[in-house]
């Protein structure tokens, strides 16, 4: 990065490319061919493959704002635990509400937040 005193700050021109940028380009863009093909690597396990590659470069991907797997219950243990806990609490709440005398089951909201 060049800084010239008294002038506008220079645009940063990184020499290398992040792995996330490279992967996003070659895995998601470009011409797609169907038909007379013997192997299409991305069809083998398309979604899983992309997900795992993103996870492999997770730090870089996170810098780009790609971190949806952290809250995806399938991919994130923390999110899965929270999901389970929510489900448990909801089930317990329903059981407790059924035990209340009729007409006293609170404000009737179902399942609260998420």
């Amino acid at each position: 990065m060049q800084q010239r005193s008294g002038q506008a700050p220079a645009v940063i021109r990184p020499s290398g490319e992040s792995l996330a940028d490279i992967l996003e380009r070659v895995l998601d863009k470009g011409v797609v061919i169907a038909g007379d093909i013997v192997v299409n690597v991305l069809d083998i396990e398309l979604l899983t493959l992309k997900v795992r590659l993103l996870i492999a470069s997770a730090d870089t991907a996170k810098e780009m704002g790609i971190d949806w797997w952290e809250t995806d219950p399938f991919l994130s243990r923390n999110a899965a635990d929270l999901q389970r806990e929510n489900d448990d609490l909801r089930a317990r709440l329903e059981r407790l509400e059924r035990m209340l005398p009729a007409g006293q089951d609170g404000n009737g909201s179902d399942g609260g937040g998420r």
Partner: protein
Amino acid sequence: MSRPDGGTVAAVRATSTGCYLYAVIGGDGTGVAGLPGIEPGGPVDVVTAGGIGAVISAVDTDAMRQGGASADIDEDGWLVRAARSHEQVVLAAFHSAPTVPMRFGIVHADRAAVERLLATYGAELRGELARLGGAAEWNVKAYIDRSVVAARFGADNDADGERPAVESGRGYLLRERARRDADARVREAIAAHAADLASQLSAVAVDLTAIPLGGEESRRPVLGAVCLVERADDARLTGVVERFAASASDDGLTVELTGPWPPYHFTSLRLGPSDE
């Protein structure tokens, strides 16, 4: 044909070798032929027909199938290395001729199958090459410099901001409201800069896609755009981005530019039997 891994295959089974396709080019491939291809496999070659060329290499199809299914997905694994190889070959092709990049992972049975592809879809491919005309893709991203933003918009919501040891409820609420107001001003400024960038780029770009990012933390880009620019306008493009960077720096944005790249984001061609 010898195997790079020196494997003890007595005879090369036809089904174990395929023809990997990297890109289609408007040229004969001088400058890209002979480069290393995806491994395990052979060097890059070019097959031409009707004035266009297909950039190919022989690959081990078993390895391609295994690589796609492998649990070995890490930055040193086969798949990441293969993706990098793909990108390098396409970039080298782009430096020598107008290039339409293929998506990663496409393997034909053999060279003859690729020749059939060029024959069958020659019109579409020549049309795409003519449309892109060798134009390049450029990527602009802007990041927030938190210290500048904090000073500029009064968004001193960091942990080291002034917070009294004993704070009244009203004091807390007033501080929270001030923080929210400052955050809103930051977001408005970012949105204004994003619109300005799109406007400035569209004066020089053939095509343009704004990238919604919205990260407000230091290391994430807050706005971005990818644009297609004729090679003759490379210098105009960098000039536009430099002027944008100057105006955005007052608001704590730092601007990053990468390119020129092959036009990955601007090819929407789908080739194959029309059964969709």
